[in-house]
C-alpha cells in the first residue's frame, strides 16, 4: 500500500474550554456537495446545553471583571488566529456548499467583525452610559453592565461570520455565551472552538454547540440561568413562541442578526445608576 490514509477530524462540541462529544452519543452526518460523507458531527442534547450554560455562568464573573481593554485585546486575538486559519475554514465552508469566492468573503467578514467588536469593548460605555445632570448635589453616574450568560442562535447558513457576528458583541460587552449552529455551519461551528481555545479566551467564556435550533433554543429560553437570548438564527415563524417563553424568567431577547452598530451591543447590555452626594 503506497497511498497515505488521511487522518480525519472528529467534530465535537466546545464546552468549558474542552472538546467533549455529546453526552447523548448522538451525531449528525455531514456530506459534501457530491454526497460523500465528511464527518459525523456531535449533536448537542439538552444535557450538553445545561453543561454549556453552567460553564458560561462559571466563567462570567472573571470575564466581566477584566478591563474592557483586556477584553478588547483578547477579542482582537481571535481575529488574528482566525485569519491564520482561514484555509481550513474556507475548506469547511466549501463542504457546506459555499463557492470558494463566497467562502473567502465569509472568512474576511468574520475576521473584520471580530476586529470591529474588539474595538467596541472599550467604547460603548462612553456612548451609552455617562453622568446624569440630576437636579441636586449628587454625582449620578450610569454605568453600562453586561447581562450575564447569553444564548446565541447563530444562523445555520451564516458561515463563520454568522457565528462571530453574535459572539463578538456579546463578548465585547462582557457577557459569556452559549452559541448554537448546525446545518451547513456545523463544521465551522465546531472548528471555531479550536480558534477560541487558542486565542486567550478563557475556558467557558464561549461555548459552542452543534445542533438543532428547533430543539435546543426552547430549552435555552426556559433555562433560569440564561440572561439573554439572541434569536437571529431561529426561523422567523418560530420566534414568537420563544419570546413568549422568555416571560417566565424575563430573559431578554433580541434579534441582532450580526448588524455592526451601537444598537447591537446595547442589546447585550444593561444600565446601572449610582448616586453619591457631592455636598459638604
Amino acid at each position: 500500500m503506497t497511498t497515505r490514509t488521511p487522518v480525519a477530524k472528529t467534530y465535537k462540541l466546545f464546552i468549558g474550554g474542552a472538546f467533549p462529544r455529546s453526552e447523548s452519543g448522538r451525531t449528525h452526518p455531514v456530506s459534501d456537495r457530491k454526497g460523500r460523507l465528511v464527518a459525523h458531527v456531535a449533536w448537542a442534547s439538552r444535557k450538553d446545553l445545561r453543561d454549556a450554560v453552567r460553564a458560561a455562568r462559571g466563567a462570567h464573573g472573571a470575564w466581566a471583571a477584566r478591563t474592557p481593554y483586556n477584553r478588547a485585546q483578547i477579542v482582537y486575538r481571535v481575529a488574528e488566529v482566525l485569519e491564520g486559519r482561514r484555509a481550513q475554514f474556507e475548506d469547511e465552508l466549501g463542504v457546506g456548499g459555499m463557492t470558494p469566492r463566497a467562502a473567502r468573503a465569509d472568512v474576511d467578514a468574520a475576521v473584520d467583525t471580530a476586529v470591529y467588536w474588539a474595538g467596541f469593548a472599550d467604547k460603548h460605555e462612553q456612548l451609552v452610559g455617562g453622568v446624569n445632570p440630576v437636579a441636586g448635589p449628587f454625582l449620578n453616574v450610569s454605568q453600562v453592565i453586561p447581562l450575564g450568560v447569553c444564548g446565541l442562535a447563530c444562523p445555520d447558513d451564516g458561515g463563520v461570520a454568522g457565528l462571530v457576528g453574535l459572539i463578538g458583541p456579546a463578548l465585547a460587552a462582557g457577557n459569556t455565551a452559549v452559541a448554537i449552529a448546525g446545518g451547513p455551519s456545523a463544521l465551522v461551528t465546531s472548528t471555531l472552538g479550536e480558534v477560541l481555545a487558542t486565542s486567550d479566551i478563557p475556558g467557558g467564556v464561549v461555548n459552542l454547540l452543534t445542533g438543532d435550533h428547533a430543539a435546543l433554543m426552547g430549552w435555552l429560553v426556559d433555562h433560569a440561568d440564561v440572561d439573554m437570548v439572541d434569536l437571529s438564527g431561529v426561523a422567523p415563524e418560530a420566534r414568537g413562541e420563544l419570546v413568549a417563553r422568555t416571560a417566565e424568567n424575563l430573559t431578554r431577547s433580541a434579534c441582532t442578526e450580526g448588524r455592526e452598530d451601537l444598537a447591537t451591543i446595547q442589546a447585550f447590555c444593561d444600565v446601572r445608576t449610582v448616586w453619591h452626594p457631592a455636598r459638604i
Partner: protein
Amino acid sequence: MTTTPARDVAARLGETFADYVPSLEGRDIVAIRPSYGLMIGGRERPAESGATITTIDPSTGAALSEVAEAGPADVDAAVDAARGAFERRWRDAAPRERSKLVFRLARLLQDRAREFAVLETLDGGKPIRESRDVDVPLAAAHFFYHAGWADKLQYAMPGMRARPLGVVGQIIPWNFPLMMAAWKLAPALACGNTVVLKPAETTPLTALLLAELVDEAGFPPGVVNVVTGAGATGSALVDHRGVDKIAFTGSTGVGKGILRALAGRDVRLTLELGGKGAHIVFDDAALDQAVEGIVDGIFFNQGHVCCAGSRLLVQESVADDLLGRLRRRMELLRVGDPLDKNTDVGAINSHAQLVRIREYVEGAVAEGCAVHQPQREIPSQGFYYPPTMVTDIGGSERIAREEVFGPVLTVQTFRTEAEAVARANSTRYGLSAGIWTEKGSRILWLANNLRAGVVWANTFNQFDPSSPFGGIRESGFGREGGRQGLEAYLELTPVRP
C-alpha cells in the same frame, strides 16, 4: 502595599537601601544608529541644509546619535507629503482598513516594547521602571483604543457628520516622548488625518523608531512624517500655510506664541501646556497612601510632568505627621542610573533644565523658604537633582507660582475646605489636582470647585486612553483621550434629517 517606615528605623533603612545591588536593564536590545534622517513621504533623508543636532544620554552626558535638523524647506516637503497622502490615500481609505492599520501599529509596538523602553530611557533619562511599565504600555494602549474608533466615528458626536481635518502639525515635548507621540498620532490617524510630527530636540529617537513601525504596519507613505529639530523647526511647522491644525504639548509660554502666530488663520489648535497642580491632603486621609501619592505626584519622571502635583496643601492638624512621613519616604528614594530597575528618580532631561531647577530652588532660599533634601549622594556624572521639599512658603514666591518642571515640591497648610480650594485655585494654571480624604462627598464638592481639567481622588497620575486629559485656563485647551478627545481631530457638520 507600601507603608512608611517608623521614625526610628528610617535612618537605618536609608543606609541599608543605599547598599542595594544594581539591576541594570541591558541596553544591547536596541541598536542606536550613528545618525538619523527625517522621515518624509516614507523615505528617510537628511535635512536639506545638512544641519544636525546631537542627542545625548542625560544620565552620562555622552552623545547617543546625530539627528537631522529640519529647516523650512524640509518642513515644506513634509507638509507636501502629508497633503498628498491625505488627498490620494488616507482621507478616502475605508474606515475599517484605517482601523486595522492602527491596530497593527499597536501590536507592533507591544511586540517591541522592551526595545522602546530602553531607548526611551537612554534618550530621555527616565527610570526604566517607568518607561517599561508606564510610557510604552500606555502608548500602545492609545493606539489600540483609537484604532477601534476609526470605524465608529459616527457615534462619537451624535447628530454630526465627522470628517478629518487634513494635515495636522504635532509638536511634542521631551518629558514623555513616545507617549506624547502616541497621544497625538493615534487620534489623528484614526480620524483620517495625516501628520507631520515634530519631536523635542533632546528626545527624538523613539519617535523615529515609531516611524519605522508605521512603515512596517503598512501605512501609506506620507501619512506620518517626522521632522526633528528644535524651536525653529516647530515655528516653521506652525507658520506653514499647508497645515489645517496644530496640536502642541509644551510650555505655556510657547503655547501662547503659537496661538499668536495662528491668529487670523483658518487653522485649528489644541494646546496642552504647563501646570502647577495642587495636591490636597485632609486630616482623615489614609496618610501612608497619601505619602505614596504625593511621591508619585511630584517625583515620577523627575517631576518633568505637566500635571505634577507640585503644590502640597495639607490640613494643619495633620501637617507635622504627614510631613514627617514624607521626609522619611524621601530618604528611601533612589536617585541614579535610569537603566537600573531599582531607580526611583532618574536623570534630569537636559543640562539646561537642571540649571533652571537649581535657579528656582536657590531663588526660594533667597526668598526665605526652607529646603529639605535627602542626605543621599547622587551621581556626579550626568544631570541629576535630588528630590526636594520646600516649606515656609507664603504663596507669592516664584517657586510657589511658576512651574519648576523638576522634582521639587512646595508645601503649604490650610484649615477648611474653602481655604484649600482658594489656595489650590490661586494660580493661572488649571491642569490637575489631587484630593486625599476618606469622605466621598468632600471629594466631589472639591472636584466641583477646583479649577482643573483633571482631578484625582485618593490616587494620582492615572492615565488611560479612554479618559480625556487636558487643562483649563492657562494650562491650555482641548482634550486628549476618550470620546471627547476625538473632537480635536474632526470637522463636525450637522447631519440634516
